């Protein structure tokens, strides 16, 4: 049976933001550190490192998940999306997704530390919920801590983005 030994690095192949990536990880390496230090994609932030704060939230196979509660070796073959995937790739520099633009308009971030994780959660949430209520947004946001905004502008930005997406906007 395939046993990845503790003292060696092992190849992990997965899809990151639409590109095939192969990199090496020890079994004990967390996905947060793998993405930031090995792959070199630093948009995902590391907060509490035990699944409480939500700063490291990414999408694994389309679903929001904590990167800090995921072993790098366990994402073999998975489809991973990070905050780097949100802004439209081929557009002019500086263009943002509908959700990101709504965050900017509503001042839904101050220090920005929690923002990458919140965006990845809400990106999936708005994909599955075209017309969410404020209560549903707040319930979904309960998996994230933000110490700057008091959440009010985050909720307003999310509801605004949902409205824009319903009116035919495209969140990529």
């Amino acid at each position, binding site marked *: 049976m395939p046993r990845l030994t503790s003292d060696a690095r092992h190849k992990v192949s997965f899809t990151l933001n639409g590109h095939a990536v192969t990199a090496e990880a020890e079994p004990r390496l*967390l996905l947060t550190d793998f993405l930031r230090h090995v792959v070199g994609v630093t948009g995902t932030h590391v907060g509490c490192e035990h699944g409480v704060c939500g700063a490291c939230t990414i999408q694994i196979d389309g679903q929001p998940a904590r990167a*800090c509660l995921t072993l790098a070796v366990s994402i073999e073959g998975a489809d991973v999306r990070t905050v780097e995937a949100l802004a439209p790739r081929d557009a002019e520099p500086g263009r943002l997704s509908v959700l990101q633009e709504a965050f900017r308009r509503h001042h839904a971030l101050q220090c920005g530390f929690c923002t990458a994780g919140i965006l990845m959660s809400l990106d999936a949430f708005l994909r599955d919920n075209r017309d969410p209520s404020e209560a549903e947004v707040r319930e979904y946001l309960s998996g994230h801590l933000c110490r700057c905004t008091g959440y009010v502008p985050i909720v307003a930005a999310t509801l605004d983005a949902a409205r824009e997406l319903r009116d035919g906007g495209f969140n990529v």
Partner: protein
Amino acid sequence: MKPPRFDYVRAHSLAEVTHTLAAEGGDARVIAGGQTLVPMLSMRLARPKVLIDIMGLSELARIEATENGLRVGAAVRQATLLAHPDLARLQPLLAAALPWVGHAQTRNRGTVCGSIAHADPSAELPLVLVALGGEVHLAKRWRQRSVAAEAFFLGLMSTARADDEFVAGVTFSAARAGQGFAFREFGRRHGDFAITACAAVVDERSTRLAVGGVADRPVARTWENLDGTALEDALNDFAYSLDARDDLHASARLRRDLVRKLGAATIAEARRCRV
């Protein structure tokens, strides 16, 4: 906070899991969704030499409605069970309690059986299993056994699982006609572990209340249908029998009061929900 070193086995068959457990004993741990075990590794509260990843085993990823109830395999994620189209009909108590388990972001990865195997005294899924009188299916090399929920939970994060066994599945009893169910929880914020949680199962003759977050494990009590002061007295006796302790989050007195008030509200709601 980084995990200590361990070997990692990606299991491709049940035999690989049980053989590795038999060979490594207490030095091996099964990992499924990792939502509890990974933070325990990071905080070095767990130091296994080998982790056995079971998420690739399709035979453990099944949700089956059997004559005994709803059987949930060890690789079934909490979000998958919550999204099951018949869940509210098969077992309304699970449908009511699952949204209280962690957050959407952790339910996407965490498994039902993982929460039960971890046996946190304030976790929702062990409480529901005890309330329903369900079973835990333990597997080891060449052998399987099923343990009643109330015999499985022995204390704080302590269960009847032996070192060479793993939780291969659990069965939640199915809802019967004439039963009513309710779940209520009091915590600091939604998604936190409960300070006190109550699950009630009632029918035409009896009232069963299970309480989590007070004793060192979920505890259930069944009474003939009581009302008024008789019910209040029974809840008061139950509250004192749980040996509540003061901690950072709540006093023992608040916890006892929650058993009385939240318990009564949960039972009343379950009675209203009887079909």
